[in-house]
């Protein structure tokens, strides 16, 4: 399992990265492995307000659906539309397959470092 050092992680298994004041969000390698083959993603729209700790979309496998929980509060400024046609990218390259970008961050969940997150996953698993 891969836990890149330059990212922060939520306890609901999203990863977070900051780029020029914009928060980029995806799901971790651990999450994609646990969810299995993903077949579809429901995304918010650009301009939607998201709230830390609340769902901003969901991912579907064949027999399950899981909420995507937003680690930060703010405004969605970009969505990765490529995932709509190629949800397998979430399985294949979870750290390249960003899901949304959020600007005007007002709040965030407690986030873990790569090492702490790895320990957290080991406990869960």
């Amino acid at each position: 399992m891969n836990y890149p050092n330059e990212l922060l992680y939520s306890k609901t298994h999203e990863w977070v990265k900051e780029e020029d004041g914009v928060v980029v969000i995806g799901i971790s390698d651990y999450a994609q492995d646990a969810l299995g083959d993903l077949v579809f993603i429901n995304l918010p729209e650009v301009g939607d307000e998201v709230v830390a700790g609340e769902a901003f979309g969901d991912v579907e496998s064949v027999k399950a659906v899981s909420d995507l929980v937003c680690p930060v509060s703010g405004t969605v400024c970009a969505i990765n539309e490529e995932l709509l046609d190629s949800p397998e990218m979430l399985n294949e390259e979870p750290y390249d397959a960003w899901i949304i970008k959020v600007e005007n961050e007002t709040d965030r969940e407690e986030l873990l470092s790569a090492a702490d997150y790895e320990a957290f996953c080991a406990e869960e698993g």
Partner: protein
Amino acid sequence: MKLIFEKSAAGHRCAILPPCDVEEVALPAELTREAAPKLPELNETEISRHYTELNKRVHGVNCGFYPLGSCTMKYNPRIDEETAALPGFTAVHPLAPAHTVEGCKEALDTAKAYLCEITGMDDMTFQPAAGAHGEFTGVMLIKQYHDARGDSKRRKIIVPDSAHGTNPATAAMCGYDVVNIPSAPNGCVDLEALKAVLGEDTAGLMLTNPNTVGIFDENILEITRLVHEAGGLCYYDGANLNAVMGVVRPGDMGFDCIHLNLHKTFATPHGGGGPGSGAVGCKAALAPYLPNKDGIRVRSFHGNFLVVIKALTYLLTLGKEGVPEAAKNAVLNANYLQSKIKGTFTPAFDRLCMHEFVLDLSGFKKETGVSALDVAKSLIDYGMHPPTMYFPLIVHEALMLEPTETESRDTLDEAAEIFRKLFELAKTDPDYMHAAPHNAQIGRPDEVRAARNPILRYSFE
């Protein structure tokens, strides 16, 4: 096998209609379609062969054991088909004048009288077309009841975590917030958890009894009393009525309304996924809110009328003695099969069950690597329809078996023997089971591919 479109040959046709015997009128060009639909061109022989070939690739209740939990796959009597095909029913227009449809009215009234007595309800509608549709109708009764009293703070419907997915989905369709409550370790309602969520905002409780793990909740009177005390109403999901019909009545358990699955409990065929009939019964206090001319309507006309005729035929056949006899034997068969399987696979709850029981294969999977899915698929090689898989959600690696009353002891013995063989096989050749089925119409389908790249129609290219 080939699709019907791949068998199509230009010019093949059936001669159905005579030439038009009045002057033909034509529509202005701006109203007519540009291209004809690409429907297949076949002769009647070809159509008959095609569908006969398809029909050979279907497993019906008439083919063999079908212990699909929660679905009550009992034998569908042929007499029920014959009565429902009487021209006196099939040729009747739904908006024909009342004095010309007295037979339809008598049939519906008779079915209503039987079913109200069996459920302990005062009134009933046959408008809903299926179980989930009945749930929607039933919860709408609850909604109208509270609304009519101006009791607008009741925003929540309580649903146990063992419930069918339709229960929470229904509550949401009726605008309610869903409160899921955990089950007690014995699979029944956790009274403390229930008390903790009951209050002024409780609109009602949706419950299946016996529940989805096949256990009759001994606290049922206490449960319905608590809900009523909080000002809520109790909804009975009739999916499992086959266990108790003629033995105990939901109305006597304290329920205010109920839906029935006539296509489960009352032996009407499932038709590969419908049509069903989701008759909804209620106590007198809710009767004014049943579908009526000025109130709610959940579909056109009078519901799936012919399905009601089939259920009525079944009820007339069984009658006073046969109805409880069916329930008692459904429960007997389930317990007999459970006891026979118990030496191998592990029941999730080791006790007497009602009409169905759940196996918990989580330990077995840990030990052998063989999952509930592998076992289910292996059963197909023996010509048995697999049980319901991975439901209810509160049991991991669940297989849920409902044999019904129309199976003989020999069939149950044979089924138990097949389970025993698979239990042994898992230890010696798990890979064979991972790859099952081996002798079916197809191997395991790639469902991920189907969902990622949906092909939902033939493309003609």
